[in-house]
């Protein structure tokens, strides 16, 4: 009734409503457009730092999966500073980087800081390019393992390989594990390596200056240069950098080598639950201190506090177990 009382004709009423709707629609249109057409204007920097453990692999996998699903990320840079670590954790990072690298239109560049060796090299190998600083250390493609030993018969277990095992079978298992790593690296970078497989398998490490010549790396460059190159490849123009921290918040674990193997230590004054023998590992031992070195430098602490003495004894015990 009120409509009839106005002087506005029905045609004008419809026009007014349409204009109002159009205006309202224009207000929402940009956000709708943005949701459906996100421009990849972000370079994600994923940090892979410290010993490669399950916790680190969890985080790296999650970050890279999110990045693959996030259209606002146009390029990825892996910031690496790691001596390697556990074989399975290294493989998980390798697979996650490989999948990310195979995503269309998503450049992935690895940027090595001080060191990315052994398991660290494994993880970054599928990147499109590896950037190193002149004195970065890369390589060490191989397995750390103690020599398989024949032990005295142990009564109790349900089978001969439950405890102990055969020396030759141990050698075979270790060589298979080493070749799994080496074969993967040959598949990823065999065309880049300027040396035969036998030479790669020697597990040597190379400085950045040497690595760009022998195929273990592609370019000399800092993190910023790697980011810029990644953005350029993704044709981002203007871009922002989103750094993704991974791994545990603390500086633990740290790795210690004993005479027979590498152990991961999860506390400064570790108890029984804070030491993890790694057994077979993909670790560059040059970047891992020996337990005797740590004991020598912490000798004063050890003498000062009995608690610290117990803790270090636990470290030694873990190493020789």
């Amino acid at each position, binding site marked *: 009734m009120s409509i009839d009382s106005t002087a506005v004709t029905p045609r004008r009423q419809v026009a007014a409503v349409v204009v109002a709707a*159009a205006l309202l629609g224009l207000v929402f249109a940009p956000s709708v457009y943005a949701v459906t057409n996100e421009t990849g204007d972000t370079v994600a920097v994923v940090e892979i730092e410290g010993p490669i453990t399950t916790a680190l692999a969890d985080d790296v996998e999650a970050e890279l999966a999110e990045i693959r699903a996030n259209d606002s990320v146009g390029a990825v840079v892996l910031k690496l500073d790691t001596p390697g670590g556990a074989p399975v954790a290294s493989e998980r990072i390798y697979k996650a980087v490989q999948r990310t690298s195979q995503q269309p239109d998503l450049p992935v560049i690895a940027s090595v800081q001080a060191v990315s060796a052994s398991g660290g090299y494994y993880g970054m190998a599928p990147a499109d390019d590896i950037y190193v600083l002149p004195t970065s250390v890369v390589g060490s493609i191989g397995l750390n393992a103690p020599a398989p030993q024949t032990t005295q018969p142990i009564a109790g277990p349900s089978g001969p390989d439950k405890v102990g095992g055969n020396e030759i079978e141990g050698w075979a298992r270790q060589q298979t594990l080493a*070749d799994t790593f080496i074969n993967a690296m040959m598949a990823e970078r065999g065309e880049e390596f300027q040396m035969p497989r036998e030479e790669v398998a020697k597990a040597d490490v190379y400085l950045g200056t040497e690595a760009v010549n022998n195929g273990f790396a592609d370019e000399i460059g800092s993190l910023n240069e790697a980011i810029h190159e990644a953005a350029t490849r993704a044709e981002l123009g203007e871009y922002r950098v989103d750094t993704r921290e991974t791994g545990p918040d603390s500086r633990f674990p740290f790795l210690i080598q004993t005479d027979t193997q590498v152990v991961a230590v999860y506390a400064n004054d570790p108890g029984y639950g804070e030491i993890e023998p790694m057994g077979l590992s993909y670790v560059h031992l040059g970047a891992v201190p020996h337990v005797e070195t740590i004991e020598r430098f912490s000798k004063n602490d050890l003498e000062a506090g009995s608690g610290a003495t117990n803790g270090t004894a636990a470290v030694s015990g873990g190493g020789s177990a």
Partner: protein
Amino acid sequence: MNRAATLAAAFLVTFATVTGGAAVVGFASADGAAPAPEIENEHYLQDDLIKDRTPGEANVEMSSDAAPQTVVVDPGIEPSRGPIGPLALLGFGGPDVTDRDIRPLANALIENGHEVRVYTPGESEQRPPRGPDADGPTPLGEELAEADAFVTFRTDYDQAELEEIETFVEADGRVVMATEPDAAFDRPGAASLDATLGTTTKPGYVYNMAENDLNYQRVYATPTDESGLTDGVDRAMFATATPVETAAAEGDELRPIDGSELSTSRAATDAPLLVRNDGVVMIGDSDFLSPENAQRADNDVLIGNLADFLASNDRNPDRQPPTAGGTAEPTGPTGPVGPTPTDEPVEPPREPPQNETSG
């Protein structure tokens, strides 16, 4: 009502058209984010990736039908530590060669009627500090005096023992010496023993990245020529071996296969791993004859040949004692039969102590 419905419909249609249009344009112009394809990592599925873990079998046989001989084995057990401590089970602090390590060789000798004596100096017989005025043969010398052949894994003999070993070799005793690359790091005396036996060891170890027995340090070696030591051996396996050499003509018996390199030079090497200098066989590895390693390649044949080598000697302990000081002189009447000339050069070193004690 009709009018209100019309207006509402007009609003919705317009709004939907604008926002829907934006969505369609946005989606259409967006970069495709297709799901990643399945990744095939064929390098994880290669046939040769899984190594053959079959330990193998050993059949150590002797072809020699020599009369019963006495073979002394010195596994290098430290007298101060006792035979085997609990740490040895973990691989620390124990002898370099355990009883089970010499079993394949010892069993072959025993099964063929020979006597095997393991030289284990007791606590009271402290080995290294033998004073200059020590009298008579050393405990080792006493063992060698009754032995026909000698197998040792040690290098740190004192001067008196070295002289006894030298005399033993000169008196037709046969010696098999097995050493390790790391012996040069923690055991003194290898150079003196080398000089005594007329052999040398080279610093470093041999490895082979291209073809090996499950590890680069477990290298294969092949015979250089046909000989009694290598008869029936196509290839032998040595675990962490150091090159050994001898000045003797045609003394090189086994050389590492192609692709082998030396750790100190990182260059290709064909320096022998097993040499023979007349009655002395020098091997750059002491692990090849362990029960597990005897099952690899033709190591069992090689061990059998070594047993033959030890048993096939011209020595007669009754007439050719190793020490000139104690028992050599009383056997004077048999001198013309035995190789007396070889006894003479060895006497002077033993004489000063005797003179001192008698004077």
